[in-house]
């Protein structure tokens, strides 16, 4: 009996704690819809080695690629970014072509995913985020593979060097 009373007391104490978290209101809802603490954050300025190559290449492709119907200023910016890699003419043109194709396919991929996200949110469902990530990373990898075929080995070394050994001293 003593054991039962002790167990009951412990459970009641735990139960009071649990109810204190649940009440009020009687119907329990999450206080914060975002779980920021559960998302790992990588600070590239502190731990650049933790950034996957696919992420580094994707962000580079996205930031350097020309949009559709670029303004003259946009063209100058694009050329300036590419000139920084110091590729030869043929390699530079191949990279520009690959980036243009990437940008078009990337924009289409996002547009399609956002269409499904609009429908999902109306239906109270979650869009297929993991499927989108697979397609996104596959597109980056495909672009890298195409670049390896289109650009000379020396040019590819220069491009890789931009990501692998950024200290230029």
């Amino acid at each position, binding site marked *: 009996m003593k054991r039962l009373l002790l*167990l*009951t007391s412990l*459970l009641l104490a*735990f*139960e009071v704690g*649990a*109810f204190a*978290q*649940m009440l009020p209101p*009687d*119907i*329990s*809802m*999450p206080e914060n*819809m*975002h779980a*920021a603490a*559960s*998302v790992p954050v990588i*600070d590239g*300025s*502190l731990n*650049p*080695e933790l950034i996957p190559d696919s*992420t580094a290449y994707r*962000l*580079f492709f*996205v*930031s350097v690629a020309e949009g559709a119907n670029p303004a003259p*200023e946009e063209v*100058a*910016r694009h*050329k*300036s*970014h590419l*000139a*920084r890699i*110091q590729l030869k003419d043929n390699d530079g043109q191949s990279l520009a072509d690959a980036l243009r194709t990437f940008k078009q396919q990337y924009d289409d991929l*996002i547009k399609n*995913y*956002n269409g499904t*996200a*609009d429908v*999902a*949110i109306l239906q*109270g*469902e*979650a*869009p297929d*985020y993991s499927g989108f990530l697979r397609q996104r990373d596959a597109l980056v990898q495909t672009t890298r593979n195409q670049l390896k075929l289109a650009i000379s080995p020396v040019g590819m*070394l*220069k491009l890789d*060097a931009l*990501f*692998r*050994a*950024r*200290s*230029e*001293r």
Partner: protein
Amino acid sequence: MRKLILASLVICLAGYCWGQMNPQYDGYVTYSSDSSNNFYQTVVVEGTTYGSCNTTCCQGSPYPPYYTCWSCPIPGCAGATHTPSIENVVNGVGGWTTGPGSNPFSYMSYQTTTVVSIPPGGGASPLAEWEVTCSQIGVIGSGNGLTPSSHTYPNPPISPNCQVRTPFDAIINKTTGAIHAAQDIRNTTHDIQVGAPVYAPEGGTVHIQSGYPHINQPVTQCAGQGYHANYIEITDGSGNRTRLVHVTALPG
């Protein structure tokens, strides 16, 4: 009594079955310059929030089955918008801009570019930050880019003109994580030849360092080899150090 104990356990365990929304956003800064002395800084923020606008709601009861859970909508979620903002400033030019808002599960990809003309010998002081804001709860993601810093020389170190090639802290060694912690300068026409004279851009204490001789090989093969070339270092009164690297002849 045993029923009460059992009910208590069920309530304790079932009280933590919430759904969650997870913001995942990336920020990126890149920069370049051209032969017209234009300096470009591009800042990108992209990503999305994944999860669902539905979660699990639970209600306790003193009667069997004592505790009931069901799927219910998160208040305000379906009508919420997530909006990207970027601060892209170089030498005081630029500022905060806000991209289009979209539903929380849309994938956003927003970028801005700031272009400034930097005169020969001038420095670049870049600043880059980004945020993603939820209309329901405020900022859900943020980050920053470069450390603002600049140094302007009274005289150009190379002739005819020079420009900032890489701003301070802009380059990071991906292997070691070390920050470049320097502002690189080059000539505007990118055609400096072996034997071209270099000049002290400002007064200070001079240190001459001998290193390995110049080798004709691509920059990508020289970088990160752990040894240095000949250089002359000038330290000004504020502790700023300027190195004229890869000089091919040193005074006796």
